[in-house]
Structures are given as C-alpha cells and as structure tokens.
C-alpha cells in the first residue's frame, strides 16, 4: 500500500511541474497584450504621423488585432494570478476577479473598436486616425480600472 502511494506521488510530481504555474499564466497574459501592443504601436505611429501611412500595413495590423479577438482570454485570467498573489510579476489588479462582468464590458468595447478599425484602416489616414483614437481609449479605460500603474 505504502509503495503504491509513494509511486503515485512520484508520478504526480512531474505532472504538477508540467502544469502551468500562476507565474506562467501571468506571463502568457502579458505576452498576449504585448501582441496587441505590437500591432497597436504601428497603427498609433501612423495615426500620429511618426510612420508614413500605408494602407496595406494598416489593414494588416488591424486584421491581426481582429484575429487576436478570436483568442479566448478567459484561461489567461485564471484565479490566483493577480498582482496580490504575484507581486512584481503582473499588474493585474485583484478587482478583475471580483468584477469579471466589468472586465468583460471593457473587452466588448475593445472588440467593437477593433471591428470599427477594421472597417476603415485601409481607407486612408483621415479614416484611420479617429478609429485608432477610439481603440486606444478602450485600452486606457480598462487600464484605469483593472491594471496597477506600476509593478
């Protein structure tokens, strides 16, 4: 009996190690938002005139953002991965897990701004700029409520 229990324990250890730690999940979450930022930074640079507007590149970046909205983020917001549990590793505030509906509303606003952007991104700089502004506004609005300013 004891042998069986011990061997189960030995088997269980690698299994636990293979599962994602809270820190891994937070890291993946940060990675997901980095991808959004990567696309958004090009669009914002075009909107501000730092990078010359290019209809194809703008449309491609908008399309990538749209593709990323298909990604299911719910597992990135696993419990136990807030900045209270992982200080210095994430800025996700515990209030996220108290107000998932609120976070969902912010996400919905973001998705609709991405859709709007996709409708206009290839139609010239004048069409791009307000859509990028609106999209950035949805980033800010969620950061204000759900993300700590610093680690």
């Amino acid at each position, binding site marked *: 009996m004891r042998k069986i229990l011990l061997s189960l324990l030995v088997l269980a250890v690698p299994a636990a190690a293979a599962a994602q730690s809270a820190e891994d999940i937070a890291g993946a979450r940060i990675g997901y938002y980095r991808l959004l930022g990567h696309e958004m930074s090009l669009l914002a640079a075009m909107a501000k005139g730092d990078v010359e507007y290019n209809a194809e590149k703008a449309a491609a970046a908008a399309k990538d953002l749209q593709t990323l909205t298909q990604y299911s983020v719910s597992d990135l917001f696993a419990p136990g991965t807030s900045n209270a549990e992982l200080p210095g590793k994430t800025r996700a505030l515990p209030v996220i897990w108290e107000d998932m509906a609120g976070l969902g509303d912010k996400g919905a606003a973001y998705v609709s701004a991405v859709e709007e952007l996709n409708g206009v991104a290839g139609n010239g700089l004048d069409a791009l700029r307000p859509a990028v502004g609106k999209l*950035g506004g949805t*980033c*800010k609005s969620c950061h204000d409520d759900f993300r700590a300013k610093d680690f």
Partner: protein
Amino acid sequence: MSMVSETGRGRAIPQPSIAAEGVPVWDPVVRVLHWALVIAFAAAWGLGKFGPDQMTLHFWAGYAVAAIVVIRVIWGFVGSQTARFTSFVKGPRKVFGYAREMTSRRPSKTLGHNPMGALFIVGVLIVLAMQILSGLLADPEDYINVGPLAQYVSSDVARQALALHEPLSTLLLAMVAVHILSIVFYRLYKKEDLVTPMFTGRKKID
C-alpha cells in the same frame, strides 16, 4: 467722466477707482498667472479624472500649467518686488516667528507672501513641476495618451512616472484645499482680505 470729485469740504481730491485703493502688492503678471493657473489646473485635474479617454484636452491643459509655472519661476527672478523669491523666501526663524503670530486675531499686514505662505508657494511650484514632468514622461500603454517625453526614457521610468502622476494630483488637490482654507481663516479669524488684492493688485492697509 473725471477722476476728480468734490468732497463735502469742497476740495477736489483725486478719486481713486476701486482698483487703485490701497498700496500695490501684486503686479499684473502675478495676478494673471495666478488666475490662469486656477483655470488651467482645474481643467487639467477635471479632464484627467473625469474627461474623455482620448485625453488631448488634458494634455493641452497640462501644457498650459507648464507654461504658467515656467513663466512664474522666471518672474520670481526678474519680476516686481513681491514676485521675487529673494524677497519672500525666509529662513526657519522668520517662518516660526510668523507661525507663532498666526493665532493672533489681527491682520498680518504682510505685503506679498508671508514667510509661511512663501513655503507654500515654493512647495506648490515644486509639486507642480513634478506633476508636469511625470505627465510628460508617463506611458499608460494605450498608444494615444503617451507623454511626449516617454519615448526618451526607459519603460521602467515611464511606468514610474505614470504611477506618480495620480498620487501627485491628489496631493495638489490637497494643497489647493489648504490654500483656500488659509484664505478663509485669514478672512474670518484674522479679518484680512487676501482675495481682493489678487484681483485688483492692491491691498488696503488700515
């Protein structure tokens, strides 16, 4: 309309306008900057807290505050007597001496900033400068409300600036409250009107 009127004694004396009553205390630059700061700070604070997510107007209000602070500091070296730092910034002995007289129920009769008020002026200019700098450096990672200087510093610094910007806004609001409460205290307790001179530039000395 003549500036001269007849008095009961039949003698013509210069009739000062309201603005000319009392002795000069605040020059026009100080007064304009003061009230411009009231407007610009209120706008920046309100837009920061309650304004739209696209913060362009907040940025402009912040630039206005920055311009006001820069001009006021320059004026603190080259302006009129009461505007100059060297005329109103005092050492601890003068500050404590003035603090002891604070509770006496009579006007201070100070022309310009009193030694304690001077501390406040320097303090508020420093905190405003910190707030301006933190705003210029802050990166909220929304790609549209990024401080114009954030691109020249590391992301760590840009994040620390962002983290400072909101607490500093609360500190500034508290300083505004202290400022207004002091003025109310002077008016009610010490019977000294500090508001009118900031409009007219002149202070009535009994």
